[in-house]
């Protein structure tokens, strides 16, 4: 168990404030990193996480206990990030139109300084692809757990991960393409930061 979260073995009772606070504490770091990878902006990621929990709190009385709350929050987070990126794209188009005929201001140097190449490359990926990549290679989920978390097939998860590796290897170097597990590395168990995913 890593620093990201604790085990969510307790039952989540819909509408219960204490259970929701526990979900907030356990899932905030993981969602923050996932959203940071999707948005590429730390402040936007924090804003999106807060928005995620506002949406989740509004829907909390209707939450179905048989569902894994981590997956529920993850889907809200990805949808929120998609909405954010759509709004950001519209804002950037409006900004380009507004600045037509004026000398270009370029990107914000402060933002560029705090943004690593890795995050920039991740933010260029489709949101669900970036989210799966972070879940797989940063939070330590395997493909089956990601598929269960998102309600998609393992084949879909595998295709998204392959797309992410190809794209990142083009931008960041061939090392990001990954390597097939050998007999020695196949048994290596990477530490997982994520909390337990309940069977659906």
């Amino acid at each position, binding site marked *: 168990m890593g620093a990201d979260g604790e085990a969510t073995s307790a039952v989540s009772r819909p509408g219960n404030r204490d259970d929701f606070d526990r979900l907030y*504490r356990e899932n905030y770091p993981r969602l923050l990193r996932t959203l940071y990878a999707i948005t590429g902006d730390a402040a936007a990621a924090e804003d999106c996480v*807060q928005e995620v929990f*506002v949406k989740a709190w509004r829907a909390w009385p209707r939450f179905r206990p048989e569902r894994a709350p981590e997956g529920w929050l993850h889907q809200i987070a990805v949808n929120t990030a998609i909405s954010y990126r759509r709004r950001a794209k519209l804002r950037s188009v409006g900004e380009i139109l507004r600045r037509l005929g004026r000398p270009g201001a370029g990107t914000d140097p402060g933002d560029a300084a705090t943004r690593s190449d890795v995050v920039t490359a991740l933010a260029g990926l489709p949101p669900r692809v970036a989210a799966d990549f972070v879940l797989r290679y940063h939070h330590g989920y395997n493909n089956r757990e990601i598929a269960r978390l998102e309600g998609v097939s393992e084949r879909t998860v595998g295709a998204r991960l392959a797309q992410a590796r190809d794209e990142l290897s083009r931008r960041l170097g061939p090392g990001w393409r990954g390597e097939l597990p050998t007999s020695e590395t196949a048994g290596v168990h990477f530490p997982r930061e994520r909390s337990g995913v309940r069977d659906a």
Partner: protein
Amino acid sequence: MPDRELPEHIRRQLSAGLDGGSPLVAPLPSQARFAALHGATPSPRWRLRALTVAVAAAGIVVVALAGPPQPREWVVQTVNGISRQVGVPAGSVTPSPKEQSTTSDQRERSEPSESPETHETPGESPEPAQSPEPEESPDGDDAPQSGPAQPQASPTPEPSDGGGDGGGDHSPEPSPSSGD
């Protein structure tokens, strides 16, 4: 199919990139944005709004279907009444054919005595028995029938000079006086 794994130094780059830009410690739940909504139970207000909109829409539909069939009929009636008083033929004020037929039907039903006035041409009158009366008056048999018209015509020839200067051409009444 075995999935590819990232090398260890790539994983460290990934972790460093993701951990670098954002604080890892979550704010307290009491400081989170959703805590502001805690006082208000997450009751869906959109249900009340949707119910209001649905009731309003249903009311509009009911009024549209079960209301008066021709809400502007009073306009047509008023215009026709004014045109009748002024003397303008009713045909010059032509509403839609549907309204015209309904108003003419209502006019015939409500005002049967006024229909001959509007139709001034003899051929279109619904009661042709009245129109040939003036033509049959010279026969003398119908003179008592046209009695109401006689008192108006008779006083004028009596105080006259009785010369009979062609006045007998008009009516049969002056004929006995002119014979004197």
